[in-house]
């Protein structure tokens, strides 16, 4: 298949980065009144019309629906935040790769205003890369030696393990639906796994995105966590976390040391989340390797 990797990357020296997916959300209105949804140690979620906006301080972990800001700004924001209160975001494009943002955090007693100029816009769209790049010996080996299974939620949850074994024996899109919302945490392992698999469908163009279509339909009547729902939504619109775009670029350029580093970084996501997604990726490759009789 044809490969498409004409990505426009922002200048990574920008203090703050925003996914290009979010810029579409921001530009939908003159101002956006979001609400604080959840606050964690290293990040927080705002919500605007069911769309989460994740703000963190590590640009390498920029979410598909996220912003990363400098640590000082992050602390300033976090100190002002209270779950349930409103945050006004005004964003204006300065050029295709940057935007200026003005945040107004409404809290009792004071209004905190934070202006961020020249926020770099990061392309988080999925590229098109032939499956051959992934099935190359080196890439597969890099995945296989990364103890993905051991680090995933599937290794410790009987229900997931059982479903995995059934699927690995014979892939069945309908059966895979059972993994929606399966597991614990903000992004259940079942969702992460499915998203890894779906992501590979969309990148490689293999399988006519059959699982992706199945899951898209299933989500109309099956529920999962708010965060996972958001990841499904952005994925279905062709966006992924920044780290994945980096991985795909490294795969395309067959940069093995970069591939190994990024896999290692991804494995650090959440308790099991990174490994769960990688397991989905690996399973997709295994299924297709078998199909292709590699």
């Amino acid at each position, binding site marked *: 298949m044809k490969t498409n990797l004409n990505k426009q990357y922002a200048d990574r020296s920008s203090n703050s980065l925003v996914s290009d997916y979010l810029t579409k959300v921001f530009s939908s209105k003159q101002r956006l009144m979001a609400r604080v949804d959840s606050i964690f140690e290293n990040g927080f979620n705002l919500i605007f019309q069911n769309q989460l906006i994740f703000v963190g301080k590590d640009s390498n972990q920029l979410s598909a629906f996220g912003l990363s800001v400098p640590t000082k700004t992050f602390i300033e924001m976090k100190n002002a935040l209270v779950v349930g209160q409103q945050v006004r975001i005004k964003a204006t494009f300065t050029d295709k790769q940057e935007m200026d943002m003005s945040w107004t955090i409404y*809290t009792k007693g004071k209004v905190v205003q934070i202006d961020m100029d020249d926020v770099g816009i990061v392309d988080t769209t999925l590229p098109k890369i032939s499956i051959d790049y992934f099935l190359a010996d080196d890439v597969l080996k890099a995945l296989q030696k990364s103890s993905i299974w051991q680090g995933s939620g599937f290794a410790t949850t009987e229900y997931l393990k059982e479903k995995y074994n059934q699927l690995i024996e014979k892939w069945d899109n309908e059966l895979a639906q059972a993994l929606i919302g399966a597991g614990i945490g903000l992004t259940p392992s079942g969702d992460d796994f499915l998203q890894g698999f779906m992501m590979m469908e969309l990148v490689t163009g293999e399988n006519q995105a059959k699982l992706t279509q199945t899951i898209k339909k299933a989500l109309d009547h099956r529920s999962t966590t708010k965060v996972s729902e958001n990841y499904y939504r952005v994925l279905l619109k062709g966006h992924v976390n920044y780290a994945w775009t980096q991985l795909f670029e490294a795969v395309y350029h067959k940069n093995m040391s970069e591939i190994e580093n990024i896999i290692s970084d991804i494995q650090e996501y959440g308790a099991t989340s990174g490994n769960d997604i990688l397991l989905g990726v690996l399973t997709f490759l295994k299924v297709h390797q078998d199909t292709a009789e590699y």
Partner: protein
Amino acid sequence: MLHTVIQKNNYQDSINLMLLTNSVNDIDGVSQAQIMMASDANKDILKSAGLYTDEVEAAGANDMAIVVEADDESIMEDVNAEIDRFLSDLSGKKDEGGISSVNNWKDALETKSDANLALVSIPGSYAADEIEKALDSGLHVFSFSDNVSLEDEVRLKNKAHEKGLLLMGPDCGTGVISSVPLAFTNVTNPGNIGIVAASGTGIQEATTIIDRLGGGVVHAIGTGGRDLNEKVQATTMLDAISGLEEHDPTDVILVISKPPAKEVRDNVMKTLQSLSKPVVAIFLGEKPSEHVGNVALAYTLEEAAKMAVDLANGDEIKANYNDEIDFEVTKPLPEGKTVKGLYSGGTLASEAATLISDALSLDNVKGEEGYILNTHGFQVMDLGDDVYTQGKPHPMIDPEVRVKKLQEVLQDETTGIILLDVVLGYGSHADMAGALAPSIKEALSDAKANDRELYVIGSVVGTDHDPQNYADAVAKLEDAGVIVETSNARAIRLALKLMGKELSIADKSFVDYDGEKVSVPAASEQVVELLNNPPRVINIGIESFTEPITAFGGEALQFSWRPKAGGNKKLIRILNELEKREDEINASNDKVIDRLKNSQPFLVDAKLAKEVIPELNTGEKVILHAGPPIKFENMTGPMQGSVIGAMLFEEWATDEDDAMRQLEAGEVTFIPCHHVGAVGPMGGITSANFPVFVVENKTDGTTGYCIMNEGIGEVLRFGANSPAVIDRLRWMRDVLGPILGQALRTHEEGLNLNVMIARAIGMGDEFHQRNIAASLVFLKEITPSIITLDADEKEKAEVIQFLADTDQFFLNIMMATGKSMVDYARKIKEGTVVTTMARNGENFGIRVAALGDEWFNGPVNTPNGLYFTGYSAELANPDIGDSAITETVGVGGMAMIAAPGVTRFIGLNGLEDAQSISEEMAQISITHNPNWAIPNWDFQGATLGIDIRKVVETGITPIINTGIAHKEAGVGQIGAGTVRAPLEAFEKALVAYAESVGIHVDEN
């Protein structure tokens, strides 16, 4: 180069001086400095430091020596300034931190020096004055208080505008500044909507609906109900709108107005049309058919709130916001049935009246007082109106009025629907829904039993963040059978639907505004500051208003206000007039205070009274007495007993009967001690041959005299006149007085009393009730001189023994000291400082600096205290004696903190109570005396300068520590305790002072 300053007779303890030395050494240009008392030992230290100068050598142990090494002599200006600052700060030290309450403006403004808002919730008749003071102090004002006259409102709002301040109110029930709730208020989320409103439940309804819709309010600025009156000209509304226009976090402005004057409405509309931000406006009583230009016009508060939320979210205004009423009405109520609205919120009641009249085409007739609508059986009542709340709490606080009204309206057989509101939030009843529920249940149950069709429809103004919780309140009402709607407008619409008259509200669209636009005035700096920071509030009045402020990010200091002068209008007017001349009066008072502070009292001699008081040396029978002038026949028993004793002592009478005969014949002349430079304890009785102390105020030689202390028990000053008493007086005349006089005269300058007092106050004396330390200090100073006198050894021993036995001996010296100080100060005939307090058993008299020798009297009180075994309060003589001179100069009861044990005489418990007494006394005093620092009081000096203005304003009268005499002559002392000076004396003095400075004193 060494520079020396000697401050004569300025005694400070060594710790203070070390701290001061460090402070002076920190001054740029000072090579080294040392500040010490110039005692011999300290002179040696100065020598070894190379700081010994001729001036130091000449100084004495009671002098403070400041020696500075510096190249530039002009540095001494800085040094002297630092010494003044340090000593004054030391003596006037204020508590820092932890102060949560004050009771006067001065303390409020000092404690909360960064305050930007005064929240006033005091009775309306006093509110205008306090609002004005707040404005004059540069504070914005939120006036919860109502009953301010329209005239005052116009004047105060104009003043606020000129000063760049906002006057929110009067009658502003609720508000939000920087998302901090004020007064009666709901807890809502902050957001990008700014409200300017007539206030009250209009703001509450709008903000809570906005909150429940997911929006938020950053400011809700109340204007008061009359702001759009033609006389007020929307002053606050326009200033607030300018502020919100410039306030970046505000994206949408919501204006809620009571029915406005047309001209004012037009003017406001011009401004609203000229803003850069979208506006939603509701003019209550108007039913707009379209939106105009920049302004979306609403009919109901609910509609206004919904439109504001849409605009806040950047969405378009919808054509119609009146969702269907879900409640299904199968059969409307029969003809003749009526609706009764029992509201606790005035604006909600107005909304009900408007909607019902519009829908049923009724004239909006108010009828009798208390009704917002009253026609054809349809009634809407604002139960918060004065008609219903005279002497009763507001129906948001107390369910009683509403419960009674509910029963009353049910008597009307036409009543088919009862409308009501439940307003949650800070300030409201903790569970109004629960409190109303039983009555509602009963009413509905009775109606059902009687086959009567009755509906109770309500709405709850609140949020889930409110202390009462919105969902809980709704559940309780529903459980009681109330049909609860999500807004007042929907509740009214449901009522109308049940009446078979659905309220139709047509779609609205925008039309262009073709009127005049204006240039929106810039907001003042103060308004910008207010709207961009958490409010820092001085809360004057209802204390609970501080709770939501501090709970949600603001700051608040409680000003526990009480009416000035006990609410006496005449005195308040005088105080207000005097306040206008405050600078001038304070300058005068400073002169008097400086004299008191700078006094240099020295005990120089002891002589017979006639030798120093010419009035007693005329050969006539003249007797001095305590207090203001009094006739013999009006004297109480002890004073009369003392008079007789003095006549026996002077051998003017052979016995008591003889004395009485002469007295009744008017052969004896009486003069107050105070008129001849003297003071006397208890009866104060002094005649020619009483030995008296002579205290000289070295500043200008003013003297003060006082007889000597006879000890305790059966003594003349308490009215005893037995032979033993007379014998002791003779011994005092012949032995004690002469020996003490001789001994004192051996001291070239006399004994420095400031030094002795400063030492003794640190040892626990307050110099009225407790003098043991000072008496010992005196004994220490005088004994060596007595021993070396060329006098009879036995007599010398008797004197020393008498001094050693007499714990209160120093009291009389202290009294003479006080007299020498006040008479020096009284030479400045200006200002409002009390220069004399004295009692004669009948009257408590005071004199005031500006009014010279004139006495202002009030009836004496009877002391409260502990009694010796066998005696009780019924036997106590009314307050008597000149010893209140001690309190006049800031010791005695004024300095209770120095001798906390004295509090036990009046059933209190020591240090904490003593401190609160002294803190209270500080409120009526002008300053502290740096000469007499009190260790227990963090080395603050004793209070100084009782100010008649402060006494009358606060109603706090000086507390006097005193001995208690038996009311009958001859018995003597029966106890000790404290007594308050009567306010009347100070009030009379204030009136006289006001007249003396040309203030017209109106009796009405």
